[in-house]
Structure formats: C-alpha cells, structure tokens
C-alpha cells in the first residue's frame, strides 16, 4: 500500500471484518491483520484455502451468507488497494505515537520463520475476540481433555473430530453448537453437562423475547441434539477426568444450587475425549497496556469500557466484539459497524454511502447486549466449583502450581492473582496466565471482576525477529494478494440486521 492507512484493525473475526468493510465503504484506507491464515476469526474459522474444497464445513457454520458477503466486500477493496490485508500476522504490542498508533506485529506466514514489522495509522480498532474460560478440575490436564472452543476449532478448521465418545461440560449456550457439530460428524456425544438450571433464563424473559433470532438459533441446536439423541443434563458438571496417555473416563455429578457436587450422584462415564468451557474470557492484551479503562461485565470478566460509539477511553482507540463483553457474532458484527461509523465520523469523513438508517446498528447493539447480559446471568460460574479441587489438582499447568500452593499463598495474604503469581509462579509460564488466570482469581478474590494481568508482550515472538527490527528500520513489503474467497452469494454487505 503506497499511501498511509487511516485505520488499523487488529482481528479479522466478525467484528473486525464488519468494521473494516464499513470503514472501507466510507472511503478510508485500512490495514486488517489477523493471526490466522483465513478471514473469519474463531466463529467463522475455515480450513486453509488450499484444503477448503476437500473439507466440507459449511453445515457447521451459522451466518455464512454474511461471512461471504464480508469476504467479498473486503476482496473488492483489496483490488482497489485501499485494504492492506495481513493474514498470518500476530500483533505483539501496540504503542501510541505522536500521530497515531504503531502496531508491532510478526509475519508468520512462513512459520517458523518470523519477520517483525510495524503497521501505523492514526486510528486503531481492537477486535481480538475472546477465548475459552477454563476452571480446573482433577484430571483436566490429561491428554484428550480439551476446551469446547478447541473441539470446535478442530471441527471447523480441519474437519477433525477429537474423539469418538465425547463428553462436554461447563456452562453457556456455546456447548450446544459444539455438541451438534460433533454429532453431525458421527461422534457419540455421551453427555452435555450444563451447570446452570434452565429456569435461570426465566428470570430475564425480556431480552429473550426481544431477540427471537437467538431463540430460534437455540431451538435449532436443541432439535439437532434431539435428532442425534444427545443427552443434555442441566445442573450437572464434569468434576473429574481420568486416564493415562489419553483420557478414558470422566466423573459427572449433579450440582447443588451453590454448584457443589451432590453427594452420591457421581457416576463414571467412559469417553475418549472431553470438551469443557465456562464461557469466554475477552482478549484484552493489546488494550490494557494502552491504558484503556476496563469495566465489569455480567459474566465476571472485566471488559474494555466503550461509549455508545465503541470508543474506548483512549482517544483514537476503538473496540468491538468480545473485547467489549462476550455476546456472540451477531453482536460483534453490529459493534464492528458501529465502531467504523464512529471512526469515519471522528476522521471527518463524509456520510456513509450505504443504505440503512444510522441508528440501526446502535439499537441492535443495545438489544443484543441485553441478551448477552441475560445469558451471562443465566450461566454463572458455580460459586462452589473450588470444592471439586483437591490440594494436588494442578491449576497453573505451565508452571505446575497446585491448588494447595495457591491456597497457601492466599492464607499468607496474597489477595489477587498478581500477588499469587509472584509467590507461586502461577501464570508465569508459556501461556502467561491466560488459562489459569480466571481460576486463580476466583480462588483468591472471588466477588470482584477478573482483570487479566497486564501483558506487554501479547504473543511470544523470537528475539531474532525483534533484533532484526532494531537493526533494520521497517519497510515491510505488501503481502501478495491471495485468491479471493469463493463468492457463492451475490449479496452485497448491507446494514440489515443479523438473523
């Protein structure tokens, strides 16, 4: 791209794609980067381009028409040169500079070779999504115990089913599409253990009634599960897993209202893979060091605080999607559009030459956020989950720190996960507390929202790549234009609300 960009978008999932498409439609120049090899993020994860014809995944997706329309819109802007699309690029740091932001990234398209480079623009949109929130339990580190998001990524990204007899556990509506997807691939889903009580939804009927699309989506999964005879067991949890080189069984227990296992209800179920997910934790690594204020969300996570136009508290920085609170792809798309509209307005660009009322995304965002909040309140972490842990249960897997060691640190006065880290090394390893952070937080400071530790390095990067950046000032070549994604629909991207 010869001319400087007006906007860098980090993350090409639903929020980032929609934001980039809307901003491009408004006439600005955009750099869109994502660590994956294909557009779509986790929600619209696809096999790599060269394998797509061989691995059918369309039936696993929801809202594919929208995905393809966004892909088409972005492809058109690449042709005009106004979109600089950088797939396979990981952002490891973002810093403010005099006239905007510098996104420090590594190009990993030819991994393991990495090339560090810097992408600059006066505006920054962070749409880095979220990842599975995990709660430890005895045996969660046995091979074959995965996150539900991991199971889904294997299915969508490679058509791979992680096992033939699978138990799913945790809480939240995300368990259902994963169960349905596995069942559709011939996997025997022996149980879906949902910790929440279905009646919890009835406490918040308003948002449910105002989001019929969500209701219909849920009903669709329920029908699929019924068809495949997948048992969904409310008020239960996977409280232990066992196995050697590979998981062979799980223990499932009914839960008392506080989330503790009801005595005498435990039963052993043979499996060869397990998927667990307790909602999601937003990926805030780029936003926290910039100084963006955080706020509490209903699911126990701190999320980035944004105004009605998706502006963070740092001028020039916008956020959309799960970083602002977990709420699903439809909300993410609308937040992305809303953010792009704010960016266009703040850049002084003219009115958007697209159809649709300006207020449409904002009202959709409000409605869908209310739904997300109701969803979070209906699927809380069971307060008594720590009762599943023995003192020997490993909580931080990277540094092999046990629940007992964390309890000792707490008894010695450590009152948050940062302090526990200093005293026990929990969260100091390879994943930097991304896995164990929420759990350590719950074990030491329950009642407050989980704020992740500040991570100045958002993804590991080789010292050699950084050293080269020091020695040769940046002049990154524009990546070659990859083939345009298949256009199976003639729909252009419009401002219609998501189904």
């Amino acid at each position, binding site marked *: 791209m010869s001319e400087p960009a007006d906007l860098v978008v980090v993350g090409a999932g639903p929020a980032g794609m929609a934001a980039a498409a809307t901003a491009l439609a408004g006439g600005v120049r955009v750099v869109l980067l994502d660590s994956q090899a294909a557009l779509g993020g986790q929600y619209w994860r696809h096999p790599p381009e060269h394998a797509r014809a061989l691995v059918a995944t369309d039936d696993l997706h929801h809202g594919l028409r929208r995905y393809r329309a966004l892909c088409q819109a972005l492809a058109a802007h690449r042709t005009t040169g106004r979109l600089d699309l950088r797939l396979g690029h990981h952002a490891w*740091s973002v*810093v*403010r500079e005099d006239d905007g932001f*510098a996104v*420090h990234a590594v190009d990993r398209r030819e991994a393991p070779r990495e090339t*560090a480079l810097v992408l600059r623009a006066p505006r920054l949109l962070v749409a880095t999504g979220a990842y599975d929130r995990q709660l430890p339990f005895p045996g969660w580190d046995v091979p074959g115990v995965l996150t539900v998001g991991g199971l889904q990524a294997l299915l969508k990204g490679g058509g791979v089913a992680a096992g033939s007899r699978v138990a799913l556990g945790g809480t939240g509506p995300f368990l259902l599409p994963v169960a349905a997807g596995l069942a559709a691939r011939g996997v025997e889903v022996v149980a879906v253990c949902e910790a929440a009580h279905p009646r919890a939804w009835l406490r918040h009927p308003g948002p449910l009634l105002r989001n019929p699309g969500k209701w219909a989506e849920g009903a669709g999964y329920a029908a699929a599960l019924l068809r495949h005879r997948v048992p969904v067991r409310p008020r239960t949890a996977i409280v232990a897993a066992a196995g050697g080189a590979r998981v062979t069984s799980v223990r499932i227990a009914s839960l008392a209202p506080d989330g503790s296992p009801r005595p005498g209800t435990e039963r052993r179920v043979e499996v060869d893979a397990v998927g667990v997910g307790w909602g999601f934790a937003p990926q805030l690594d780029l936003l926290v*060091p910039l*100084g963006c204020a955080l706020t509490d969300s209903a699911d126990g996570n701190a999320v980035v605080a944004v105004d009605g136009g998706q502006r963070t508290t740092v001028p020039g920085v916008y956020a959309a999607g799960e970083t602002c609170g977990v709420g699903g792809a439809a909300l993410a798309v609308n937040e992305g559009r809303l953010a792009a509209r704010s960016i266009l307005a703040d850049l002084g660009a003219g009115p958007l030459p697209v159809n649709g009322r300006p207020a449409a995304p904002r009202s959709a965002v409000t409605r869908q956020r209310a739904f997300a909040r109701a969803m979070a309140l209906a699927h809380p972490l069971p307060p008594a989950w720590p009762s599943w842990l023995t003192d020997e249960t490993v909580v931080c897997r990277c*540094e092999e720190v046990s629940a007992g060691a964390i309890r000792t640190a707490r008894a*010695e*006065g*450590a*009152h948050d996960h*940062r*302090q526990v880290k*200093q*005293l026990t*090394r929990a969260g*100091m*390893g*390879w994943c*930097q507390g991304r896995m164990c952070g929420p759990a350590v937080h719950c074990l030491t400071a329950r009642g407050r929202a989980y704020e992740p530790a500040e*991570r*100045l*390095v958002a993804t*590991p*990067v*080789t*010292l*050699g790549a*950084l*050293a080269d*950046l*020091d*020695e040769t000032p940046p002049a990154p070549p524009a990546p070659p234009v990859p083939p345009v994604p298949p256009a199976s629909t003639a729909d252009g991207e419009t401002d219609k609300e998501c189904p």
Partner: protein
Amino acid sequence: MTLKVVVVGAGVVGAACAFHAASAGLDVTVTDRGPVGAGTTSRGEGNVLLSDKEPGPELDLARLSRTLWDEVGGELGPDTFELEAKGGLVVASGPEGLAALQEFAARQEAAGVRAERVDRVRDLEPHLAPGLPGGVHYPQDAQVQPVLAAAALLRAAVRHGARFRQGEVAGAVTGRDGRVTGVRTAAGEVLPADAVVNAAGTWGGEVGRRLGAPVEVLPRRGFVLVTEPLPPMVRHKVYSADYVAGVASSDAGLETSCVVEGTRGGTILIGASRERVGFDTTMNTAVVTRLAAQACRLFPFLRGVHLMRAYRGFRPYCPDHLPVVGPDPRVPGVVHACGHEGAGIGLAPATGALVTAHLLGRPWRGADPAAHTGLLPDRFLTPGGAPQ
C-alpha cells in the same frame, strides 16, 4: 521501654529493615499501601552484585550486604527465596573495553572484591558469541527471587513480633520537641512511633515529604525481558562491560546495556534499560528491540528463542546515585532507607542492618553507622537543614 518503629514500605528494603529491627527486639510495624514486594521489588532481576560497583560508599554497603544475604539464607533457608551464588561474568566487546574493564576490576580488588581475569570467556559460558576478547569473573555475584525474599524477610520479622498493616502514610505526628511520636495514615489512624523508617523505594521522595523530611528520589524506568523456559544455557549473570558505565550515568535519554542470566524457572532474563521519563508506564518497543539485539549479539542462540513477556519498573535514584540511609536531622525520629536505584535487592539486608544500628545507636550485625556516613541524608542538606 521498647522503641516503637514504623517501617513505611513492604518492599525488600522495608522487609529487611523490619527483619533486622524486630530481630534486635524493637517493636516494629510495617505499613504499605499494597501487599509485600508489589512495587519495584517485583520488577527487577534480583541482582545481588558487587561487580557493577566502583569503590566507595555503595560498594562498602554491598560487601556487607553480600555477607548478610548468606546469613539470611542460613537463617531462613536459601531455597525459600532462591538464593543462588551463581557469579557474574562481565565481558568486553573489544580490546579497549577490556583494558578499561580490567583497570576497573583492579580497583575493585583493592577494595576487597574478588575479581578474576578471564581470557577465554567461553570456558565459563559456552554459548557466548565467538570472538569476544575477554572479561572478568566475579564469583561473589548472586541472585535472589526478590518477592519471595521480601515475603520471607517479612514473615521472619513477624515471627520476631513485627506486625504488617496495610495502609497509606499521610504524615508524621510530632511532639513539642519536634520528635516523631506517630504516623498518621490516610485512613485517619495514628500508629504510635518513636521512629519512622522511610523505605518507600521509588515513592521515598513523596513519603519523605509527607513526613516533613523531603529527600530527592527520582524514578528511572527500566524494562526486563523474559524468554520462554529453556534447559540451562546461561550459567552466570553475564553482562557487557558498558553496563558499568550505564549504572553510574545521569543521561536523560535511553540507555541499554544488556544483562543476560538464567533463572531457577528456566527462563532467561534480559535487562536492563534506563530511561528518565518520570512514572510513565507506557511500553517502549524500541527498548525491547534494542535489548533483544544486544542479547542476541552476546548469545547468538537467543535469536531462535521466544520473548514471552516483558515488565518494567521504576528504579529509585538520588541525584548522586547513592542510596540515602540514616536519620534525617530535620525531623528527629525519621530514618531514610531509600534511593537504591537498581541495587535495592542486593543492598537490602545491609540497609536493614544499618537502619537498625542507627535506631539502636550501636553497630548491628556488622553494620556500623560510623562506617557508612557517605549515605547519610546530611549530604543533601545545608548546615541549616535546608536542601542544598
């Protein structure tokens, strides 16, 4: 009657002051607005160094401190805070640097530091880059895990009767003679005190001001890089000879001089940058890439090793780059113990012993106030008591 002492600051220096004062039988209360070791203590590499210090008041304190770290290790168990006498290796990058380094080492030896000339540095560190002309090995250099050390010292102090109170200091309460009688907290509480120890590290200037005894303590930002865990590859604290120049420098701009070392956890730490930017916490990627480049030049294998995280902190320094340890003549009862710059971990036990000696009015554990007059706050004051 037992002397009542309030130690302000639960970093490694405050914890060491509490440990020694409580061991000496004084009535000790430690207060900090945060938990133990949450400030600059948690932001360093855990250096216990003699190698980087030129002969003078700081080296005198460092030599005592090195002995006291071994004593603390003997008393509390060296593994409780990962005390490791790994030794330092300072390498020169060219013949001129080597000559300067050897001259520096000779002066240190004359002051009692063990320093050994090394012609083939790869005999000590096989993964160093080829072609380095030589260096100096300092077998006394050591490392501790600073937060664990602060926590262990504070726990030991509590065993000797000390108390820990979380809270922020608002000011000193003084009697009619101007002597301290207590410390007022931001919550409005008064902690009775015959003496107050200002061990607030980088915030020592502000705490001194609140106590009516201001000292100039300024922040100097530093970044440390942490790699992925590896099998042991770097045995010593290895640094380039230009670090010695950087420590003593007053330049405002960015300086980096690379220090590379392994840790018990398998990670490799790469320091250390020095910037005078106030308390600005923002990431400086230029520092990170510069440190990476310097580390890769020393140890080429690091090119393929991942940077896993980076952290930064604020070293507290006084205008003359010496710590300020001793009673403040303006407010009887106030004793300063701050401004240790990048050497606070290493100097902590001796600082604690020296503060205790000042409080007792007699030497304590080898710390004789008469031998460390160069660290007194008087050096910043005119005879009338006003700042110079």
